């Protein structure tokens, strides 16, 4: 079966009668990633920035899992298999570690400045 | 069930699937809602008997068995008040978050062989993870209520539940290790036979860790003596101080649902699941293969066993609640971090070593070899063929009834 053309596939994406493809997951991952980046860029609250980071990592994870899934892989195509899932696991673990350190930094920042507004972390500004 | 609907009744595929899914969802919902009614009634009767009272006696004739239903109707009719400074959206959402978490965790809980909403390969983790979500509703409720008492309750609950998840997770891992599977159906199956096959009697370490699990489970569902989040003598009513009517009752349904859930988890992980202490069915010569009715009977018996064990757990929690004073927050944390966690860690290591040294369990020949690891896996190319654990069962969306 030939892959459908690009324009058509975007329409098909919303169709509930067709099975999903890897591209579906990639789009979801892209949206999560972009939302995370926007979150990091706009939020003044340090915790908001942290949440943005979590979203970005999560978006990447969606891609890993999608490529790893034998169910999503097209006929004859080889999925990433366990490797993708293992990497996704490591990403989750590292995200947890990152959150712990980031929270500790935020806490120290709050102790020194009585705020979590990252715009006020400008002590090193020339 | 889907097979039955499509082949016997002749429904089309999608209808059968939807119907099957709806039936299991409704059944689980009824387990929680109906269970909450029964357990609230039981709590009243148990507490009354403990305290030299009679409890409800009149509603619904004898024993006041309709009392909780009457209360439910009263709650339906009550006004849902919201404080002026509250965060409306979060305030309204919080009870449903709690309830949904409790409900979702039931999906992976097996009630008897094959009687499970969705047989999950990682059921144990799933249940623990989703149960942890319940605290989310509580924190939202405490924050959104715009009341200092509620905030205190929410913060206490957050600290407590997050801490107790550590030892709870360790306790849960031990049966997983013994069975070699995170599938609750498999774990329960491995404990079939006489009661000394139960994992609680597997070795001394599992026996100790069972009690650690009981402690942590009571703490993680916020029951006395760990009910700090709603400590009425300190925090008025804790996180649900500002709630009334139906929203308030959702919190209670979630609480009783979680109580039943952790008790059922204890039953599945340590107390043989749906296998009774005496393998009655086997002794009578029943098995899956004999006749048409035998599988149904076996499942019914298993259902009764599991619900009985879980209810016993709930009753014991009530007994504890009406007997003991409440701990203080620092003592609750000490219990978790200084006692439960180290004990659980040591017992985990001990159970692991025991598994290496004496894989059969305490009573020789009683236990069964655990683990899904096939011999072929370690041998190389040919291993692939023998590798995959049977994937047939876990694919069905709904398998409530055989």
């Amino acid at each position: 079966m030939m892959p459908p053309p690009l324009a058509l596939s975007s329409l098909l994406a919303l169709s509930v009668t067709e099975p999903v493809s890897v591209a579906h997951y990639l789009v979801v991952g892209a949206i999560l990633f972009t939302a995370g980046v926007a979150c990091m860029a706009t939020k003044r609250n340090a915790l908001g920035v942290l949440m943005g980071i979590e979203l970005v990592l999560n978006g990447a994870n969606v891609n890993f899992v999608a490529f790893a899934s034998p169910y999503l892989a097209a006929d004859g195509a080889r999925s990433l298999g366990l490797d993708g899932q293992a990497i996704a696991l490591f990403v989750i673990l590292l995200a947890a570690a990152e959150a712990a350190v980031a929270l500790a930094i935020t806490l120290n920042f709050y102790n020194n400045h009585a705020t979590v507004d990252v715009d006020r972390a400008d002590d090193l500004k020339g | 069930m889907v097979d039955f609907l499509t082949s016997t009744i002749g429904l089309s595929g999608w209808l059968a699937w939807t119907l099957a899914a709806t039936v299991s969802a409704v059944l689980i919902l009824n387990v929680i809602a109906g269970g909450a009614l029964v357990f609230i009634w039981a709590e009243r009767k148990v507490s009354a008997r403990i305290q030299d009272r009679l409890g409800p006696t009149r509603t619904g004739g004898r024993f006041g068995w309709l009392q909780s239903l009457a209360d439910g109707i009263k709650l339906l009719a009550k006004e849902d008040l919201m404080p002026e400074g509250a965060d409306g959206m979060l305030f309204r959402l919080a009870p449903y978050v709690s309830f949904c978490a409790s409900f979702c965790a039931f999906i992976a809980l097996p009630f008897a062989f094959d009687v499970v909403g969705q047989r999950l390969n990682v059921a144990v983790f799933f249940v623990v993870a989703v149960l942890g979500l319940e605290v989310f509703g509580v924190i939202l409720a405490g924050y959104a209520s715009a009341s200092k008492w509620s905030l205190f309750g929410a913060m206490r609950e957050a600290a407590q539940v997050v801490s107790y998840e550590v030892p709870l997770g360790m306790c849960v891992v031990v049966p997983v290790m013994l069975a070699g599977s995170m599938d609750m159906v498999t774990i329960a199956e491995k404990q079939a036979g006489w009661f000394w096959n139960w994992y609680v009697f597997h070795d001394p370490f599992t026996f100790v860790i069972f009690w650690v699990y009981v402690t942590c489970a009571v703490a993680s569902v916020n029951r006395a003596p760990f009910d700090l989040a709603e400590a009425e003598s300190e925090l008025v009513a804790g996180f649900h101080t500002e709630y009334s009517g139906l929203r308030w009752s959702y919190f209670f349904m979630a609480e009783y649902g979680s109580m039943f859930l952790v008790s059922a988890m204890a039953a599945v992980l340590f107390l043989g699941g749906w296998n009774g202490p005496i393998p009655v069915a086997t002794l009578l010569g029943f098995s899956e293969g004999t006749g048409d009715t035998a599988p149904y009977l076996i499942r019914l018996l298993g259902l009764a066993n599991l619900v009985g064990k879980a209810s016993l757990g709930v009753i014991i929690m009530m007994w504890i609640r009406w007997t003991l004073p409440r701990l203080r927050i620092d003592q609750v944390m000490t219990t978790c971090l200084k006692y439960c966690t180290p004990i659980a860690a040591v017992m985990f290591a001990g159970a692991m070593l025991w598994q290496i040294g004496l894989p059969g369990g305490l009573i020789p020949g009683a236990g069964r070899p655990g683990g899904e690891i096939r011999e072929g896996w370690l041998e190389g190319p040919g291993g692939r063929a023998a590798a995959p654990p049977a994937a047939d069962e876990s694919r069905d969306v709904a398998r409530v009834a055989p």
Partner: protein
Amino acid sequence: MANAIEDDPRIIEFDVRTDEMLVNMGPQHPSTHGVLRLVLRTDGEIVSEVEPHIGYLHRCAEKIGENLTHRQWIPYTDRMDYLAAMNMNLGWSLAVEKLMKYEVSEKARHLRVLIAELGRIASHLVGMGAYGLDLGTFSPFLYAFREREKILDLFEEACGARLTYSYITIGGLTADLPPGWLQRCEAFLDQFEPIIQEYHTLLTTNAIFVKRTAGVGVLSRDMAIEYGCSGPVLRGSGVDQDLRRDGEAIYTAMYDGYAFEVAVQKDGHYPRDHEYPAVPAGTVLGDCWHRFFVRMLEVVQSMDLVRQSIDRYSACKGTIGEPLKLAEKMPAGDAYLETECPKGQMGFYLVSDGSAKPWRVRARSSSFSNLAVTPELCRGCLIADVPAVVGSLDIVMGEIDR
């Protein structure tokens, strides 16, 4: 005090910038024993300051007293410490009798001891049960009330009222005991004696109870004296004072010939006249546990006194005599008398101008002084300790606000 906070091992000082929060505990709060309002200044769970606000139950009882005759004011004393109304009646009656230099008959004296000590048991039962409630255990409260009900039954038989008796009155008592009362009273004592052991199991020696009370709210001997504390609060700090032994002659004469040991820790141990549980490790003289324990000892002590008074009362011939007339004229002058009430030393002062009505009435309530130490005891404790401390002082708002 700053050093005491710094050295307190229970306080975990996080280096997090925190804001303090003012929290109103009461006047509508489940554990403030009526309408006490405590304003807590808290830093998270740690209480830095407690300020009691009183006056929500003020009823101008003293002013009313200037417009009634001496005997007409008796019902108003009932409503001061409504949990020990008999002892309030007794205090006022003795104060007036002191002014008149009146002496009641021997039989009335023994009956007064009997009734007052039963009232002390009833009051301590409420204090004990409510203290369990403050610490989060409900059942002992009902066990205590079950026994208190039996005492109230006895009182009802004797005087017709269950809460506000006005039984002991100026010049004696309003009526003699009905036939068979003494037997019923003795039956109650026999039945009650083993139950005290249950209270000890449920509360006094319960591990969680000890954890919650030991070392909490330590009231030093000096501070107790400086603040004018009295009753079990004072004796819990190791001060050997009991007005039944150390009071004024007119009051101690009432207990003439009665054998009892003051419930106080002397030379490192409590009286050894009965079997008591050992003092658990971790307790400090003057903490909540000792205040509670003194009350438990006094229950046993009062039971002894009741038994003695029953013997003496039945040995007396004749009648108890008639009380004074409702509008008896008093000699001009003033009198002040303190008696040992269950909550502490209750003093009544009256100035008479020679008419039937007192010119000035004043009540010195023990709960008022006992409550005054709350800010000292609660500084730097946790929120959960506040009900524990306030409960251990066993205050009654009716007596504080009058």
